């Protein structure tokens, strides 16, 4: 009979003290490896110029200052293309790309998993296989497609491909499959609701965690998107690209660069903190059958 150790009132099965110590030690060491660079990025942004270039470099800041953030905004206001334009571009691309991805992917996922027409299994299998390679493979030929469509140097060139990423459809499909019983859909149909109505009023409210996950994945990708070969004119480039330009500015701009990195990372991290529970709930059904 297995030994049951009592821990805070619950049975802790098969847990040895040695193992607990080892696991926690590894967690702390690895946590430090993950956290220190992030922490250092924040510290750098708070250092006044003389502390940024001190030898030996310090892992802490003596006179924290917000001056770097001020410098960043001054740099922004003097750039050739107004910085508000870069931010506008990023927001526009992120919002429309994400919204399009959510609508198209959820509509398809619903149809593939709940309407079950001939071919729906094959289409979902194609999506599963599409997860196995990334956009690097298609960039070159997509450039030809974009030229043929006349989309080079327009927002469409970055927004539209983002709307049909396979990951969004895959996660949505798996989540619908595991959370919505067929009987719910059937009874909605018996009440006389068409497929579109059932999709919108019955299925969608049941998969809110998956929406959020899709929104966050799509948003993260678009928010962090830097230079794209489809976009040439400066007016259409993104915030992430502009930040990269500041970072490339060298020593004089090291402070502003550090500040801009922090601004870049604050947004996705905040979004993740808010939605973490929903994302984990969605990922629980992400499993792939062989």
């Amino acid at each position, binding site marked *: 009979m*297995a030994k049951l150790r009592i821990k805070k009132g619950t049975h802790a*099965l*098969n*847990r040895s003290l040695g*193992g607990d110590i080892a*696991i926690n030690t*590894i967690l702390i060491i690895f946590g430090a490896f*993950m956290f220190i*660079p*992030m922490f*250092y990025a924040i510290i*750098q942004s708070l250092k006044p110029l003389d502390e940024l*270039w001190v*030898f030996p*470099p310090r892992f802490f800041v003596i006179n924290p200052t917000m001056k770097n953030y001020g410098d960043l905004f001054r740099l922004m206001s003097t750039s050739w293309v107004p910085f508000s334009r870069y931010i506008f571009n990023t927001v526009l691309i992120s919002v429309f790309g994400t919204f399009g991805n959510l609508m198209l992917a959820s*509509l398809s996922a619903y*149809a593939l998993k709940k*309407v079950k*027409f001939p071919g729906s299994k094959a289409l979902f299998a*194609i999506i599963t296989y*599409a997860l*196995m*390679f*990334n956009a*690097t*493979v*298609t*960039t*070159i*030929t997509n450039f*030809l497609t974009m030229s043929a469509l006349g989309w080079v140097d327009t927002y469409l060139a970055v927004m*539209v*491909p983002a709307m*049909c990423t*396979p990951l969004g459809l895959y996660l949505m499909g798996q989540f619908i499959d595991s959370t919505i019983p067929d009987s719910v859909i059937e009874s909605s*149909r018996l009440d*006389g*609701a*068409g*497929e579109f109505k059932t999709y919108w009023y019955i299925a969608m409210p049941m998969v809110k965690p998956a929406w959020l996950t899709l929104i966050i*994945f799509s948003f993260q990708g678009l928010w962090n998107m830097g230079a794209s070969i489809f976009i040439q004119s400066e007016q259409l480039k993104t915030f*992430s690209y502009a*930040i*990269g330009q500041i*970072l490339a500015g060298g020593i004089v701009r090291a402070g502003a660069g550090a500040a801009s*990195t922090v601004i*870049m*990372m604050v947004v*996705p*991290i905040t979004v*993740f903190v808010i939605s*973490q*529970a929903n*994302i*984990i709930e969605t*990922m*629980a059904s*992400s*499993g792939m059958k*062989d």
Partner: protein
Amino acid sequence: MSDKPVNLDDGGGAAVKRRAVNRGEMTRMQWTLREMKVNKVGYLMVAPFFVLFTIFTIFPVLLSIILSLTVFNLVEFPTFVFLDNYIRLLFDDDIFLKAITNTLVFAAVTGPVSYMLSFMMAWFINELSPKMRAFVTLIFYAPSISGQVYLIWQVLFHSDQYGYANSILLRFNFIQEPILWFQDANYVMNLCIVVALWLSLSTSFLAFIAGLQTVDRTYYEAGAVDGIRNRWQELWYVTLPLMKNQLMFGAVMTITGSFGFGVVVTALAGFPSIDYAAHTIMHHLDDYGGMRFEMGYASAIATLLFFMMMGANLIVKRLLSKVGT
């Protein structure tokens, strides 16, 4: 009850009738056609996504396979050269051989290591309290979503004494001269791998956390009764078999990610990297497709990359299907 198979056609619409087909009276073909007709709204619903998906994902893959057999400079019509591009790639292009080696080293190191790390860390934090677990998840996941924050590694490994690594090594007299790190062919590849690992706790990590959360406690209790004595046995005999599907999904995400790791290298080591020491297939693709406009040649590179990714994924999928059996 009526003697007809199913009859729900009182007052309902087409949607209600959809399951009323008696399959026994029809051939397979007739039945399929009937099902297609009844469910035609389904095709309408998937159309928007799949039209775009075909244009921007399926068609480009097929087109690059076709173009890889041609010479195409964007101006003149492509001329068919059969396998010349591949022969040139594999036998005449030293830099490509370097790129393919680097890509495989990247994939072979970062892929399995980040997969194991993602799983081990997810498993370790699974037993923390929910608040603590959410916090540790954030710490581990944050680097992969934080945009260009990885550039901080350039500061940590700066090429003069202001870099953190150099200053420590100098202070303790391990070195006399600052190491150039990202500009040194001996170090650049290893450093990029470290950064890749730092960025690699992403989608599969979340999938593992979620998968571990869904394993029912009663399985562990039953396992303990059946004689499982420690957490390793529990992991192997109870947890892993229950998480097989998550493991599969995580593997696919990790492999695909580990082959596509080029943007970060460019940002850290420049393009081209010193002596092409961290040159990957993706860089080679950018070079020929984005700069020299040798589209046929670039398509051959893309096609090879495509088959490498698919191959690696399918092999690993087959291996993983043996877990717990």
